[in-house]
């Protein structure tokens, strides 16, 4: 009896220790979700957390890598911005770098250390680079010299969505307050503020005067930027809208993190069709339009191609690779490139429904 009691106690103790060990483990490290960028016939991808490689997509061999050291804790969430022979990089720890790639290898033009972590992809507008941070600031950097000319204060909340600009205005949303703001590009003055849009981490889409904001309030909001951000319509979905919405003609395509894809009328917000993937699919990456199909990639690696006019499934790919798909795709003709969270580059050829894992540039 005594021994049985002790054995039970020991078993309970072991189970408790195992559970606690499980509970203590698995602290997530930032990996980054920068999308691939096309430079000529090569692709710039985040082949390791914090390191970009310019690779040949046919064999995965790198032409160059940047940086070559001290990059482990500086992943890229923002996609590199290309302007001719220059690349603008913004890493998670707040470092903004301009690279001159005209000579075939990257040469650092300037480096600016900003206060605050950077997730949103910067916007290059004229001679200025607008870099939003998690502190709620937008640093305006002179693209030529790297000098910070102005810091526009939006709020003390995180900005994850890439801003967009139209004419003299710049539009941005924040993750915590759920406010969409319009600023004067030249002066940094606030033009209007709209709080109907909800907390947003999705990159914005501006189509004419229609600003599309995918939000965590499970709605896709359409704001009229010419009417002071007045909400034109709001489309309720089944989950968070994290992926950047896509506009094609009079239809808006948006995907949720509950596995649904919606086609919505651009003018009215009325639903045209909906598709819901089974088995807990999450759509974080933006949809892409390829050969008349809306192609969406789920976090677990499944890719679905839906007929853009009916929403019917045209084809699908079961699983691309290990890791999850968070980054927006790059479409090059009939090829769609995805980078996984394990920094593997994957090519999906829509016509033949093939997945070709490319050799990672390590």
């Amino acid at each position, binding site marked *: 009896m005594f021994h049985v009691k002790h054995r039970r106690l020991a078993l309970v103790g072991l189970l*408790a220790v*195992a*559970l*606690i060990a*499980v*509970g*203590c483990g*698995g*602290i*997530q*490290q*930032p*990996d980054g*979700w920068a999308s691939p960028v096309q430079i000529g016939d090569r692709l710039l991808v985040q082949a390791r957390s914090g390191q970009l490689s310019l690779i040949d997509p046919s064999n995965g061999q790198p032409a160059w890598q940047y940086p070559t050291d001290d990059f482990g804790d500086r992943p890229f*969430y923002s996609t590199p911005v290309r302007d001719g022979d220059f690349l603008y990089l913004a890493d998670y720890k707040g470092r903004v770098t301009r690279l001159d790639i005209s000579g075939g290898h990257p040469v650092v033009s300037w480096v600016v250390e900003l206060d605050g972590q950077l*997730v949103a992809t910067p916007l290059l507008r004229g001679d200025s680079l607008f870099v939003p941070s998690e502190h709620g600031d937008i640093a305006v950097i002179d693209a030529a010299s790297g000098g910070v000319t102005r810091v526009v204060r939006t709020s003390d909340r*995180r900005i*994850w969505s890439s801003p967009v600009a139209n004419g003299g205005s710049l539009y941005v949303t924040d*993750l*915590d307050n759920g406010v969409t703001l319009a600023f004067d590009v030249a002066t940094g003055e606030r033009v209007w503020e709209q709080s109907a849009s909800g*907390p947003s*981490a999705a990159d914005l889409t501006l189509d004419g005067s229609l600003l599309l904001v995918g939000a*965590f*309030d*499970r709605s896709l909001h359409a704001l009229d930027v010419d009417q002071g951000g007045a909400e034109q319509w709001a489309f309720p979905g089944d*989950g*968070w809208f*994290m992926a950047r919405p896509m506009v094609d003609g009079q239809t808006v395509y948006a995907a949720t*993190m*509950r596995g649904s894809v919606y086609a919505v009328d651009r003018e009215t917000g009325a639903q045209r069709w909906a598709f819901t993937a089974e088995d*807990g699919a*999450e759509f*974080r990456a933006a949809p892409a339009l390829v050969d008349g199909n809306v192609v969406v990639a789920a976090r677990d690696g499944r890719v679905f191609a839906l007929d853009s006019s009916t929403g019917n499934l045209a084809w699908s790919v079961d699983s691309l690779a290990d890791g999850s798909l*968070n980054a927006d795709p790059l479409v090059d003709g009939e090829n769609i490139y995805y980078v996984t*969270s394990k920094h593997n580059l994957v090519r999906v050829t829509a016509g033949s429904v093939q997945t070709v894992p490319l050799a990672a540039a390590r």
Partner: protein
Amino acid sequence: MPIGAIWQTFLETPLINIMVGLSALTFGSYGLAILVFTVITRALMFPLTLRMLHSMRSLQDIQPQMQEIQKKYSDPRRRNEEIMKLYKEAGVNPLGCLGPQLLQFPIFIALYQVIRITLGNTPEGVLDLSRRLYDVGFIQDAVPLSRTFLGMDLGENGNFFLAALVFAAMWLQQRISTNRSAQAAPSANQAQMTQMMQWMLPLIFSWFVLFSPAGLGVYWFASTAIGLILQWVFVGPGDFTWGSLVPGPFRDALGITLPEPGTGRGSRPRPQPVAAKNSDAESRENDDASSGDERKNGRRGSRQGPRSTRSSSRSSRRRRHHRG
């Protein structure tokens, strides 16, 4: 089912949803949600806590008898048997004090993970929350959660102020639990152990709080403060007085006098000196050979000072039962 899945399905995910739901109900304040959660867990554990507090009192009650046994029996096996008998007769479970602490520990670890997951220490973490939330509207809409509370970032590590608060609260709790009567125990080892526990446990936990998200520190401080209040209300402060916190020399200078041990509410009498220690091994063996009845009689006869009604009535019941 793998153990990771068990942890996630039965503890982590429900706790994530509870915390996010509470945050929605507390006007979007995650700090308030943590405080409400602390009150709820302490309320659920109240019966166990009460048992622990009574067990603590009973353990202090039987200290004189324990010392008597330790002196009387040299054979460790026999000594342990007698101690176990004593525990049984007094209705004391020596592990009873550990119950609420052990129960709180998985909650503490789970909360550590939950705070990291819900507040999202990485951008991926914020998005991962989506698949951990139940399909309930107000829970889904509560994200992202507010990270700030009373000027603190609840997701940030390294809050010295909070670590100091946790240390102070835990030290005070330990100080009250181990009142001066217990510290004055004749066993040098026991006194040393008591002293060590009084400092080590608060130090360990405040160190842990320092290297954890501030939200966890808020939980632990609130939980300790509630524990202190419960102890004060249901057991009393014992020999503890605020004046005892003043160092000796200053105490004299300020004219602070401490009450005699055993006179405070909830305090235990100072252990009475036990009979002269047997000097030779032979007499020890003789004592060992004598039955536990002798010890029982001695214990019954030697008990002095006030006893709690609860423990005396419990002993009386047992005696009647034995006779019957």
